[in-house]
């Protein structure tokens, strides 16, 4: 359980980081390292060069309406920042553990793109943006066009996540996060984020994102569309849950059968939707 030998560069700026990453095709960036170092320890990852982003000046948080969160901002910092969207503040305690959130970063979680990760799910549910920069410049990416599958994104070789942009809570909007895991801090069996607007007691702009039972934050347009214009009663929420349960296609594991995971997802959608609706009032 020790990493292979590699070279190490502590980048002092974003430019230096991009330059170093471009030098070696087996280079890996490291931010918090809460997923990468375990993978290094198990030798699942064998980089020849590790480029440390922790001192590259990517740890700022700015708010100009939209919250601009630097890639190496610690998860615990965002968890306790009053400007953080309530959806993400509700989800953050589910990210790893108290101690791992001290070191784990927001950008690292996004770039790592674990299908069970809460931060990507919330970013997608809120319609946020991923800002990436590489040798060919800076670009903004929609989360739904960023996450491809487990551990795979549309980042180009040599590109780094430098920032995530989080829209502020909107008027008439309510949001809720639900997750179920076998133990606190474990990977979720299923998780759901719901954002809904309540305009004249009718649901509008419904955004439901489901993770862990899918390989990336996944929305189901028909489930969202079915809710548009409705008054969300417990029966309506249960129906939406049933639609979501039918829409997902989880593989199942030693911990849970596909049938269980579908039913669980339906329940989580139902609960999150009802709570988001109540909060939107």
């Amino acid at each position, binding site marked *: 359980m020790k990493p292979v030998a590699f070279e190490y560069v502590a980048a002092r700026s974003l430019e230096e980081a991009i330059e170093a990453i471009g030098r070696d095709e087996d280079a890996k960036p490291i931010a918090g390292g809460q997923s990468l170092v375990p993978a290094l*320890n198990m030798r699942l990852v064998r980089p020849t060069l590790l480029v440390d982003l922790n001192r590259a000046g990517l740890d700022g948080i700015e708010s100009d309406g939209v919250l601009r969160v630097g890639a190496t901002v610690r998860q615990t910092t965002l968890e306790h920042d009053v400007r953080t969207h309530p959806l993400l503040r509700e989800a953050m305690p589910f990210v790893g553990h108290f101690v791992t959130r001290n070191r784990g970063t927001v950008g690292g979680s996004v770039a790592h793109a674990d299908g069970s990760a809460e931060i990507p799910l919330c970013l997608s549910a809120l319609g946020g943006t991923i800002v990436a920069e590489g040798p060919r410049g800076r670009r903004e990416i929609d989360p739904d066009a960023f996450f491809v599958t487990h551990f795979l994104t549309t980042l180009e070789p040599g590109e780094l996540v430098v920032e995530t942009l989080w829209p502020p809570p909107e008027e008439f909007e309510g949001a809720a996060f639900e997750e179920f895991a076998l133990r606190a801090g474990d990977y979720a069996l299923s998780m759901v984020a719901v954002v809904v607007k309540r305009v004249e007691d009718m649901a509008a702009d419904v955004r439901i994102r489901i993770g862990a039972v899918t390989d990336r934050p996944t929305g189901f347009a028909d489930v969202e569309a079915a809710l548009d214009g409705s008054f969300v009663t417990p029966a309506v929420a249960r129906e939406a849950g049933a639609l979501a349960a039918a829409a997902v296609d989880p593989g199942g594991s030693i911990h849970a059968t596909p049938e269980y995971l579908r039913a669980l997802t339906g329940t989580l959608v139902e609960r999150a939707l009802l709570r988001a609706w109540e909060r939107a009032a």
Partner: protein
Amino acid sequence: MTRITLTVNGRKVVEDVEPRLLLTDFLRHRLGLTGTHVGCEHGVCGACTVQLDTVSVRGCCLLAVQVDGSVVETVESLAGDDGLSPLQAAFKRHHALQCGFCTPGILIAAEDLLSRCDPSHEEIVDMLSGQLCRCTGYAPIVAAIEEARDERSRQRETGQ
């Protein structure tokens, strides 16, 4: 080899390290600070938890080269010349340890939590979900941390 300079338990340390050396192995093998334990080496068990620049972190998920210029505190720094720290003393009173393997990590994580707030029972239990103990069943650990919390809060109120 990369030269790193840091402060460990108040002592300045200068060492040459291979980039792949984990902070845990650096502390244990180079500095002889074997109070920091190595359990799972993938961030799950919490036995290796140490304090880095005032917050608790997993020593096994950090490279020694990354802490260049930083201040690291390990379990060895908790007790003073006058004996156990209040949290350690509470652990002793409540029998909050049996084999002791998880204890250093739990003490460091608990000190971090207590330094931020007066944590509720639920917050303490949630913090402990990241620190595996297979002996105690956790109840005495929670009781010890709650007692240390109440003691701190009393001292704050009386201005001592």
